[in-house]
């Protein structure tokens, strides 16, 4: 599938409308959804405001001055600069949308009202559910992780709650918007009327964090960050850290793997017992990790079916054998930044990957 024409979405045209005044976390979601469609072969026209999408200047930055964030989120797209404050700009946009299957935009965008009525199916990204009536409420990635209950789950109970790294609120919403737009395309393709799609970051974050609500509903007590009292914790090893993870049925294998006689104490034989004596449990586990490398730990743990997780940084992932073997990280020759590597779409389709084209330069 190296030829765009043979890619699954090559019959479809999408318009992504960027409005610089919309909060960043919403715009990133829109760009991710459209990028996935573009990598799958759709003709995606990214309509940028005068001066370009501000994400072109957003960190992390690349050595030659480009934005890694922009390059990741805009692969395989075309770009068109339009001033939507002008009548001619809006007319040009209307012409594009007339010919398109899908138009993606955000709820607070100046052109949202018009685009909702377009012939192309609207895919709209918002911060909050319609029930909140909060289309102009200030919002950020952190605010959504807080509202969705995710921050409450991460960190030490007596210290401040933590966000999960990355643009998780934006990207989970972007993945959702991609699935929504595929549902719309599937309907169009069979001659059905396609439904308008609306995705809010706040709803997606709660949906992802569903165990908080289900746990609270079941027991009356919300799950929350347990830090040093959690069953799964991170332990230092010789060259980094490893996440200690095992299921109830994997405990005997875990105990055998560590081989410390203290773990044979009956108080550790049940899950409840391990939770009650968690500090002691981890004190008995820790020495085994301290003198081993992540690679050694992963190898011997996997041999016994124990799912310990060595912690790798994004830089280390570039060297990961599994990723190299699967070709997950594509090489992309960029006209200015040179040779870059980045994750491809995380699917292999009949064994083929979807190598991305570099993000478009800003056309005057």
């Amino acid at each position, binding site marked *: 599938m190296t030829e765009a024409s043979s890619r699954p979405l090559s019959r479809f045209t999408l318009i992504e409308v960027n409005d610089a005044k919309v909060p960043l976390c919403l715009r990133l979601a829109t760009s991710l959804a459209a990028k996935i469609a573009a990598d799958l072969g759709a003709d995606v026209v990214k309509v940028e405001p005068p001066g370009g999408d501000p994400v072109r200047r957003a960190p*992390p930055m690349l050595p030659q001055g480009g934005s890694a964030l922009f390059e990741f989120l805009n692969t395989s797209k075309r770009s068109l600069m339009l001033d939507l404050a002008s009548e001619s700009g809006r007319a040009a946009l209307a012409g594009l949308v007339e010919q398109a299957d899908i138009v993606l935009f955000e709820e607070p965008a100046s052109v949202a009202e018009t685009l909702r009525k377009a012939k192309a199916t609207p895919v709209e990204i918002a911060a909050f559910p319609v029930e909140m009536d909060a289309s102009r409420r200030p919002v950020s990635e952190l*605010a959504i992780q*807080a509202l969705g209950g995710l921050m409450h789950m991460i960190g030490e109970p007596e210290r401040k709650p933590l*966000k999960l790294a990355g643009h998780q609120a934006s990207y989970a919403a972007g993945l959702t918007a991609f699935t929504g737009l595929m549902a719309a395309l599937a309907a169009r393709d069979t001659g059905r009327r396609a439904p308008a799609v609306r995705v809010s970051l706040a709803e997606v974050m709660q949906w992802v964090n569903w165990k908080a609500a*289900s746990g609270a509903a079941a027991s009356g007590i919300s799950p929350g960050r347990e830090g040093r009292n959690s*069953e799964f914790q991170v332990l230092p090893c010789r060259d980094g850290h490893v996440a200690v*993870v095992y299921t109830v049925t994997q405990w005997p294998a875990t105990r055998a793997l560590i081989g410390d006689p203290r773990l044979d104490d009956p108080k550790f034989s049940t899950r409840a017992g391990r939770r009650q004596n968690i500090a002691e449990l981890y004190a008995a586990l820790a020495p085994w990790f301290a003198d081993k490398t992540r690679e050694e730990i992963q190898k011997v743990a*996997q041999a016994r079916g124990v799912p310990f997780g060595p912690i790798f940084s994004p830089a280390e992932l570039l060297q990961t054998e599994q990723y190299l*073997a699967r070709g997950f990280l594509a090489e992309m020759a960029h006209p200015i930044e040179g040779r870059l590597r980045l994750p491809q779409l995380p699917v292999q389709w009949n064994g083929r990957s979807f190598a991305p084209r570099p993000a478009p330069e800003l056309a005057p």
Partner: protein
Amino acid sequence: MSGRPLTGIRVLDFGLLTAGANTSAMLGDLGADVIKIESGAYLDPFRVVGKTDDGEGWWNRSPQFRFTNRNKRGLALNLKDPEGQRVIRELAAHCDVVVENFRRGVLDRAGLGYGDLRALNPRLVFAAISSQGDTGPERMNVSFGSTLDATSGIASLTGYEGEEPRISGMDVNYPDQIVSLFATGIVIAAVTEARRTGKGAFLDFSQREVASFTLGEEILAASADPAHRLAPRGNGEAGVAQQDAYRCADGKWLAVTLEAPDSSIEAFCAGKHRDTALAVLLGKGIAAAPCLDGNDLLRDTALQGVTLVRDENGGLVKGLPYRLDGEGLAIERPAPHLGQHTDEVLRELLGYDEARLKQLNDSGVTSTTPTIGEV
């Protein structure tokens, strides 16, 4: 309901727990006919994890199972029995999609892998969701939820600044939650292609890759710049002037994102109850939000949107992550009891008669109870 996006599509669902079962649930919510295959000898582990009591039929009362398996019909067929395998192969001829997240090789050994089923049905879209993907040296590796926080890179950037990395933990298992949001869309793309070309596809999803994909810009930056900083970042975010969670006078936490640094914000929050501080900050155009817990989410029906709904028995169910034409989830049937629809589906799709159904039941190929004790 003939006009829904996936009306007319049938899914053979081997999905377990969240990653697989939720992908099928999302297809079902879009109008597909989902038939979930379990076995008396191997239940969806969510039936067991969510066990609430020891009484008769306990396997049909798990809240976790109910959360992710609405809008499905449930079949129990023994995958290890050659007769059960034969029935499933017959069913596959009547399906458009297979979703599975078994460990690699399990379905192949049962003669139910993609190669076997494609020979019977070339239009079949086969979604294989696994920890590491279907190829590569780590394809047989086991993982459980937060294993993939660690190996995907997410944990390396999560945590208090200057301290050790952190995982999302067993009450979140973040990497498990996001896979279906992507996989469902890809399955729909492949179904659309199969309808047009008559050719199905093998879709190989690695959950670890999906999690790493969410750090695309970090991996890209690291590939170009060895000095790119990679360590736990607290609540900060590159390009954001100041951002953190601040404790308020009532002990509650407020998340605040500032466009310009303001050293007084900590004291400001400490001096006010959270809701007062929140109102003041929002009034100034500052992005602020309370750090809510599960009970807050249950109470706030406006914030919930369409993410939580109740089925006909009053049980709480995971709703939709999006809405189509403004609508949330329509629950046409609650999560099935084990084997609830086995006979119905075998009659309807395969034309089995009562004698055949009785024979399958008598020989233990089909069942409505677990056939082994503690699963």
